[in-house]
Every structure is written in C-alpha cells, then in structure tokens.
C-alpha cells in the first residue's frame, strides 16, 4: 500500500510530461482518459442499476406483505386460510436441514480442500478432481435432487426396513442398547440434508481452497523448519490462519442451502403440512425432549422455499401477501446467517498477524 502511494506523483509526471510538447500524443492521452472515465461510469451504472432492481424488488415484497407480517406468522403452521397461514413447519424444517448440511459439508469440504491444497502432489488425478469440482459447482440443483432420490432415499428405505425389525443393539458385547422404536420415514431430513450437502460441497471446497491458498507459504516453511510435522503445520498454523476465509465460505454456501426448493421437492418433501419435524416446535423442546430430538432427523419435513412456492401458486390472491411475508422471513434468516459469518470472520481474523 505504502509503495503504491509513493509511486503516484512519479506516474503523474510521466503522463503529463509529454503533453507539453507532443500534440498527437496529447490527443491520444485525452482519448484514453475519456475512455477510462466512460468505463468507470459504466461500472458505476451497472452497480447502481442492480442495487436499484434489488430495492424495487424489496419494496414490492414489503409492500405486498404489508399488514401480514406479525409474530404469529412464525408461531403458526400452514393453513388454507390465508389469515391463519404461518411458517413454523418450514422454519423448523429449514433449521434441521441447514444444521445437518453444515455438519456433513464442513468436515468433508474442509478436509478435501486441505488434501487438495496441502497434501496432494500435483498429479493428473488431482488436476482432474480440481477441474471437475468447478464444473460440479455449476450443476443445477435438481440434478442433485435426482441423485439424492436414487442414492440417499433408497438407502433410507433399506435402512427403514432393517431398522423396523430391530429393537436392541449389542455394542461390542458389553452393553445392550435398547432403542425405543421410532417411526422412520424414508423422505426424512437426513436424506434432504445429504442431498443439499452435495449441492453446496463444490462451493465449500472451492472457498476453503481459496483461503488455504491465501495463507503465505512462509508460514508453512517456518513451521516445518522449526521441526513441526506436516500435521502440526496444517492443524496449528495453516488452518487457523485460513479460518476466517473458510468459515465465511462455509456459512455463505450453507445459507444457499436454505433457499433450495427444487431438490427437496424431488426427494419428496411435504408441500402442505402442519407437522413440525419431531414435533419440536420451540427451542426449549430441543433440551426438554431428547427423544423427539432424536426423531426429528428421521421425520418428514417441509422447508421455507417450498412453502413460499406453494403460496405463490394459490388461487386466492390473499396468499400473495402470505408468500411475500414468507419471503421476508426467509430474507431475515439469510441476513442473520450472513451476520454470523461476518462476526465469525471478525473474531477469527483478530488473532492473525503477519
């Protein structure tokens, strides 16, 4: 930064110097300066235009939801009466989905990124994986929905048959673990979360790779020179240094999972329901009802974008306001997740000095 500052007067002199005596060059420079100004105006216009579109959209949504947004919207479940329709089931469905998507995608995503960036040698196979990762990020999510249906849902169906016949498990011959019989559904939250994991994984890996790459190699070299093993270097130096970038990438790509409807519908998520997964309809029950917490991941579900999609297709035009309100709730959730990302980034980068 400081070197660029000291350069500026010199470069100014270099540009203005020929102006005084070569008129042809003068014209050319004016033209170039004009073009440069035009370019910056185009950039400015593009930025503000997209901002304006966003503002128009938000205003339209807030306008049409006017008078509908109230706290009971997030306390009540769906209804065919637009006055009573609420988003409780979708909120909890999305909560569980995102929780498990994060649980699955963080270890796999960060682990793969560490392997690709820190451990793997530059072989043909590794290059193949890297190229395909960026291709996978562009695959439409409905394709992952089909994959999830054939792989995860079928696996869940097999598991369900096996599990239904099972009452007790022997653990290493020491304990007999007796499970209370739980109703299992093959179109459950875990299946949805695994599919969403596939959707977000390429992005998680790419952002983690990017932040690992931005860690200066002097850090690794110094650590290795001091006698640390590769594991110690990665675990104690590289990952903490890359943590702000990794966590931001992970949180942002997981929040993408909240907005996905297509793969979930493909998997057989419920469209209209008053059921909340595991019957846990308040945060308190997460602690007081451990049995139901266990049941929730294996329960049927719906999600926020599915409910919004369904409301926007209703005949009754009053549902437009309900859909708009749903969109606002979804936006609030997304913004709070992004705020968490910012806070995490702030605290994680405070410790970094180089």
């Amino acid at each position, binding site marked *: 930064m400081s070197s660029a500052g000291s350069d500026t007067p010199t470069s100014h002199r270099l540009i203005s110097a020929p102006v005084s005596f070569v008129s042809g060059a003068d014209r050319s420079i004016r033209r170039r300066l004009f073009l440069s100004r035009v370019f910056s105006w185009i950039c400015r216009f593009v930025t503000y235009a997209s901002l304006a579109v966003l503002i128009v959209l938000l205003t339209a949504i807030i306008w049409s939801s006017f008078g509908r947004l109230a706290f009971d919207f997030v306390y009540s479940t769906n209804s065919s009466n637009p006055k009573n329709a609420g988003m409780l089931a979708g909120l909890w469905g999305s909560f569980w989905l995102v929780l498990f998507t994060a649980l699955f995608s963080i270890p796999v995503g960060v682990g793969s990124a560490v392997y690709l960036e820190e451990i793997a040698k530059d072989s043909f196979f590794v290059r193949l994986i890297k190229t395909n990762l960026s291709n996978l990020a562009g695959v439409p999510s409905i394709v992952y929905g089909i994959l999830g249906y054939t792989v995860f849902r079928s696996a869940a169906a097999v598991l369900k048959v096996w599990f239904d016949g099972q009452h007790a498990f022997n653990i290493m011959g020491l304990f007999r673990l007796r499970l209370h019989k739980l109703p299992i559904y093959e179109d459950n939250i875990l299946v949805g979360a695994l599919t969403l994991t596939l959707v977000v994984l390429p992005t998680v890996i790419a952002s983690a790779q990017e932040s690992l790459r931005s860690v200066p190699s002097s850090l690794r070299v110094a650590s290795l020179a001091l006698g640390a093993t590769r594991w110690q270097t990665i675990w104690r130096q590289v990952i903490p240094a890359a943590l702000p970038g990794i966590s931001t990438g992970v949180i942002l790509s997981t929040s993408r999972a909240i907005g996905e409807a297509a793969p979930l519908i493909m998997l057989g998520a419920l469209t209209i329901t008053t059921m909340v997964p595991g019957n846990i309809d308040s945060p308190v029950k997460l602690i007081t009802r451990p049995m139901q917490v266990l049941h929730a991941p294996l329960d049927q579900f719906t999600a926020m974008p599915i409910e919004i999609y369904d409301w926007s*297709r209703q005949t009754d035009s009053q549902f437009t306001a309900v859909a708009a309100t749903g969109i606002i709730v979804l936006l609030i959730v997304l913004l709070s997740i992004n705020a968490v990302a910012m806070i995490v980034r702030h605290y994680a980068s405070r410790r970094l000095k180089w």
Partner: protein
Amino acid sequence: MSVRRRLCVMFSLGVLSSGMLGCSVENVGTPADGTNTSAPALTPSSGEPSRVQVDGSSTVKMITAAVGEEFEGKFSDVKIALKVTGTGTGFKEMIAGRIDVANASRPIKDSEKADCEKNGIDLLELIVALDGLTVCVNKDNDWVESITVDQLKRIWEPGSTVKTWQDVDASWPDVPISLFGPGEESGTFDFFTEAINGKEDAMREDYSPSADDNVTITGVSGEKGGMGFFGCAYYYSNTDKVKALKVSTTDNPGDGVGPTAESVKAGKYKPLSRPLFIYVKKSSLARQEVQDFVRFYLNEGQNQVSAVGYVDVSDDQLKASRDAFEAAIR
C-alpha cells in the same frame, strides 16, 4: 495430561450422546441373554400422531389441504402428510406403495392400473368434486362472449395458423391472439388437449406454458388479444381480472354455456367439465386414521369443495361414492 483430558471429554461425550439417544443402556448378563429379545414390545413413542400419506395433483390438493386442515382440527392424533407432485407422479408413488391416498385430476390410466395390480395394490376410486376448465379472455375483449369447440380447436390444435382473432372469425378484429396455459406436465393440459384437440398432448407449440395458473391469468389480463385456460377455482377468485367465455358444442356460438357451478354440476358445461378424484389404497383402509380421513372427506369435508372454488358432485354421485367406500371397508 492433555491426552487424558481429551479421553475424558470423549468419554463424557459418548455417555452424553447415548443418553441423548433416549435409549436404555444395560449390562449384558450372559452372552446367551443377547439372543433373548423377549423384552416388552416397545410401542411407538407416546404422543406420536399417526399419519395419512397423500400425494398427487396440484388441482385436487387445494381441496385435500382444506379438508385435511379441518380433519386435523377434529382428529388431533392424526396428521395429513400432503405432497404435490402432479397426478402422474402421484400414481407412481401409489404404484410403489408409498402413499395411502392419491389426488388425481384425471382417471387412472390402464397402464397405471396394470402396474398397481402387478404390485398387488387395489384402489378405490372416489369422485370428490367437479371442475369446469375455464377458457378466459382479456376484460377489454368486447367481440367474443361465446366460442364453439370447433373454433377452440382451430386456435389450439397442433400446427394451427391462427395468428389474429380475425383468422378465427372474419367478423372479429385484427388483434393478435396470444395464448397462455399450463405446461404438458399438468393434468389440466392433458384434459384440455383431449377434449378440444381430440388427442391427449396434441397442442400447438407457440403458446406460453406455465406451471403456475396465476401467471396464465396475469398473461391474459395483460394482453388485449390474450386467451388462456385453467381450472374454474382460479377463475372464480379472479373474476375481476379476466372474462370467461361460454363454450358451445354446436356450430352456433349462441348455444354456449358458461362455467358456472350450476352448469358444471348439471353436466351442461361440455366438453370441459371434469371430475376430480382421490384414489385410496384399499389395504390402507384397514388403518383407522385412513378410514376416518376418507369418511370425513366424503361427508363434512364436502363443505370445503365450494369453499376453495370447485363444484360439488351431484347428490347421487356422492351417495355412490359413500356406498363404494362403505363396501370397501366392510
């Protein structure tokens, strides 16, 4: 020290998680005891409501959702798990044996019936409501009130050369005609093409398809020469935006009948009236909750049909459905 602490944490996590699993951990007395599973049969965890699984048509789902909501209010220990994937997919789920009730906006096809029989699934067909597909034009369209089936066919048939209203009838103005309707995944599309063009899925290519009927309504109300079709529920809640045409089966447009509840119920609105069905898996009727739900659907639930904008079936038809249901549960 640190290793021991870590072990400690891992152990307590393990204990905690097994506690969280809601399972009872007990010592295995003797190895032989492991095979002894004569422990009392564990019932489903208390308070877990039983469920009726429903899938299928997006048209019928509006009735089923309203009926289901009222039903859940009365039978608090039963929940309706409702999916909306379309009539065809609903039947596929039924063939796979995953659902109890399939919503359908068309009768089951012979091939679907054969697949059901192959899997040993016996179905009970119940007509729960009627729908009159409504052909709508723009509010500013003042030249047409009634249209013949033949004219509709000339507009919508595959390879149709109709570009303006004048192409249909010389007395109509030279206004470009713009066509809107549901896409081919829809049961409404299947029915309309069959009824008007004589062959299922036969439709001109250059119309604007949309899976969302509200988009069709917006399209028709936005173009002076606009025309579209959808289920009557969408028309009844948008009468201020579009104008419904009378449809005539003869060559005389004056014989046209409008899609009112009376004409649809009396079977006079032809050929665009259709029954809406639910198909119930007979083996599921052995479960009390499914039986209760279907019975409710055919009795108190019928109030919801007109409330969501569809047409009640005739009393005779309803009685026939109830009789078929009672015969199936006996």
